C-alpha cells in the first residue's frame, strides 16, 4: 500500500528530476516550442515542494490536490494547467483514503490523464504529454516499473511525430524529428514514481 509519505516523496523526487533535467527540457522546447519548459516546470515543482512542507496534507489525495493547485498557480505556461489538472484530478479520485493500492492509483491516474486529454483537446499521437501518459496508465496496473518503461518509450516515440497541438503545431512538418518536451517531462514524473517505490515494486532501472 502507498501512504501519504510515499506521495510526498514522489512529488519531491519529481522536483529533483525536473531540476536535474531542466536544461534538457528547455533545449527540447527550444527546438519546437518557446524554450521555457524546463524553467517553468522547475519553478512549478520547486513551489510544490515548498507548499507540501508548509501545509503537511494528511492523505495521498490531499498531497496531489495541493500539488496540482500549486502548479496551476505558479508555472505560467500551458504545462501548469495541464500538469495541475493531472495531479488535482488524480488526487480527487483518490478521495480521503489514508493509503491506496497500486490498482487504486492506476485507476485514479487514469481519470487524471483523461481530464488532461479533455482540457487540451488532444489525443494519442498528437505529440504531447499524453503520448507518455497514456501508455503509462495502461502499464500502471501491472507495476510501477512497467509504467516507467512505457512512459519512457512513449516519450521517445514522439520523435517522428508531427505536432498537432500547441505552439509546436504551427511548425507543421518541421516539428518532426524532435522529442516532445511535454512527453519528456511526463516520463520524468512516472520515472520518479517508480524510483520512489524502489526495486521491490519493480521500480529499479
Amino acid at each position, binding site marked *: 500500500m502507498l501512504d501519504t509519505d510515499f506521495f510526498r516523496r514522489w512529488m519531491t523526487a519529481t522536483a529533483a528530476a525536473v531540476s536535474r533535467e531542466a536544461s534538457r527540457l528547455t533545449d527540447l522546447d527550444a527546438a519546437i516550442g518557446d524554450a521555457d519548459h524546463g524553467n517553468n516546470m522547475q519553478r512549478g515543482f520547486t513551489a510544490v515542494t515548498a507548499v507540501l512542507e508548509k501545509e503537511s496534507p494528511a492523505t495521498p489525495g490531499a498531497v496531489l490536490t495541493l500539488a496540482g*493547485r500549486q502548479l496551476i498557480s505558479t508555472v*505560467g505556461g*500551458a504545462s*501548469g*494547467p495541464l500538469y495541475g489538472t493531472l495531479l488535482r484530478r488524480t488526487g480527487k479520485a483518490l478521495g480521503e483514503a489514508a493509503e491506496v493500492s497500486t490498482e487504486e492509483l492506476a485507476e485514479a491516474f487514469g481519470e487524471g490523464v483523461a481530464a488532461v486529454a479533455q*482540457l487540451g483537446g488532444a489525443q494519442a499521437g498528437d505529440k504531447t504529454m499524453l503520448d507518455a501518459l497514456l501508455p503509462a496508465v495502461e502499464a500502471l496496473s501491472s507495476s510501477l516499473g512497467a509504467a516507467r518503461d512505457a512512459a519512457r518509450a512513449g516519450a521517445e516515440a514522439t520523435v517522428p511525430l508531427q505536432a498537432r497541438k500547441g505552439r509546436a503545431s504551427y511548425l507543421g512538418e518541421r516539428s518532426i524529428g524532435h522529442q516532445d518536451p511535454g512527453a519528456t517531462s511526463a516520463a520524468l514524473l512516472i520515472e520518479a514514481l517508480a524510483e520512489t517505490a524502489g526495486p521491490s515494486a519493480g521500480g529499479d532501472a
Partner: protein
Amino acid sequence: MSEEPQVGIVLVSHSGPVAEAVVELAKGLAAGGATAPVAAAGGTSAGGLGTSAELISKAARAVDRGAGVALLVDLGSAVLTVKAMLAEGDELPEGARLVDAPFVEGAVAALVTASAGGDLATVEAAATDAFGYRKT
C-alpha cells in the same frame, strides 16, 4: 440609467502590455463616459510572458458586481489556465464564464454590451458574434 449591476470583463493575455492595451482600446471605443468594469490579467505575476492564475483571480474579483464575469483569452496557457480554474470551482467568482471570441474584437463588443447593461448571456453573444465579421 439602470441600477442593475453590470457584467464584469477580464482580458487574459499571454502578455501584460497586450492585455492592458486591449483594455484601453475597448474603453476608448465603448463610449465617452463610464463603462462596465474591465480588468487586464496579462503575463506572469513576475511580468514575463505567460499566464498567472493569481492575476486572473484578482482581476475577476475586482470586476465582479454580482452579474457575472466574462473572461476573454488569447493563446495557449491563457486558455488552459482559465479552463482549469473554472473546473476547480472556487477560484473565480460565481457566474464567471470563459467566452469563446476573438480577443480584440470580442473585448470591444463585450465591453460595449456590458456597458449598455446587457446581461452575461448578451455580453457573451456579442463577443462571439465578432467571429462573424470577415475581413476579406
